[in-house]
């Protein structure tokens, strides 16, 4: 059984990830303002949602001219994976069900991965989950704040290629998830269905089609 880790050790392990999350938060703030979201809204979204890929996905839909409902739908579907991580961390969190459900709000892909690496098999490390989670939450919100303040100074987002940042980000996130044949199959199926539906249907439909194909091809 690994010895309990000190806060200092956890912070050292978290530091490089925190830096990446910070830069990511800055880019979210910049892109949100470029998508004509007020600065306060970008910060509020990071405060309340705290799920980078979903926030970017929602913003991507809005930037592409999709409706608010489509944006919520895209972001929420991406977050469905947190049901699985929630189950995985439930036993590691302290307190009763309600307290655990509240603490589970600071679980993201990054601190989950750190906690799994630091914990025993089937039991992610509690301290790592909480300390790294709180750190990442802080830098994510701070990054968004700075990005939202910086955005208007940067000028035309297209001239800076910021519109290309969305597909670049999504493809980079996708590569991380392509472990195993099932994931590759789901990705190819999702893209194919979206492309077939896109010319004939309003913006939300291709994503819904991709979601159904993803669920269907997952096993």
């Amino acid at each position: 059984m690994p010895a309990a880790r000190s806060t200092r050790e956890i912070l050292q392990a978290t530091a490089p990830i925190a830096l990446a999350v910070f830069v990511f938060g800055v880019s979210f703030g910049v892109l949100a303002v470029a998508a004509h979201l007020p600065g306060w809204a970008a910060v509020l979204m990071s405060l309340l949602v705290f799920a980078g890929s979903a926030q970017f996905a929602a913003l991507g839909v809005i930037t592409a001219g999709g409706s608010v409902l489509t944006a919520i739908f895209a972001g929420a579907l991406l977050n469905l994976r947190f049901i699985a991580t929630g189950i995985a961390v439930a036993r590691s969190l302290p307190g009763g069900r309600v307290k655990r459900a509240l603490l589970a709000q600071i679980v993201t892909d990054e601190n989950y991965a750190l906690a799994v690496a630091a914990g025993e098999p089937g039991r992610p490390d509690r301290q790592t989950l909480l300390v790294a989670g709180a750190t990442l939450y802080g830098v994510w919100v701070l990054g968004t704040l700075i990005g939202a303040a910086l955005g208007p100074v940067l000028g035309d987002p297209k001239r800076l290629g910021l519109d290309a940042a969305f597909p670049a980000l999504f493809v980079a996130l996708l590569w991380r998830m392509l472990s195993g044949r099932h994931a590759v199959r789901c990705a190819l199926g999702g893209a194919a269905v979206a492309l077939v539906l896109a010319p004939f249907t309003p913006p939300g439909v291709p994503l819904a089609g991709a979601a159904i194909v993803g669920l269907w091809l997952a096993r």
Partner: protein
Amino acid sequence: MAGPLTLGLILGLASLTFVMKAAGPLLPNIPAAITARTAGLAPALLAALVAIELTGPNGVIHLDVKVPAVIVASALAARRVPFIVCVIAGALVAALLRAAFHL
């Protein structure tokens, strides 16, 4: 975007995310068969988002600077380059091509 719509977006996404993150600790007995299937959602959606980003207003793939940007980001991501670098490289490719060809 108008204020109420913006607030609707934020609160809608926030409350759904809250429910999903809370579900595990509140309902620890969700069948594994269901959670295993949700694993297929993220790759399918991300791939669909990439595809949609590359289509024009008519819904058909549109060859502009986003295409080379995605190819470069994808090639970097495949080499396990940190993803913020992939994103910056993608944006840079788009910005440089636009500046070079006055697109």
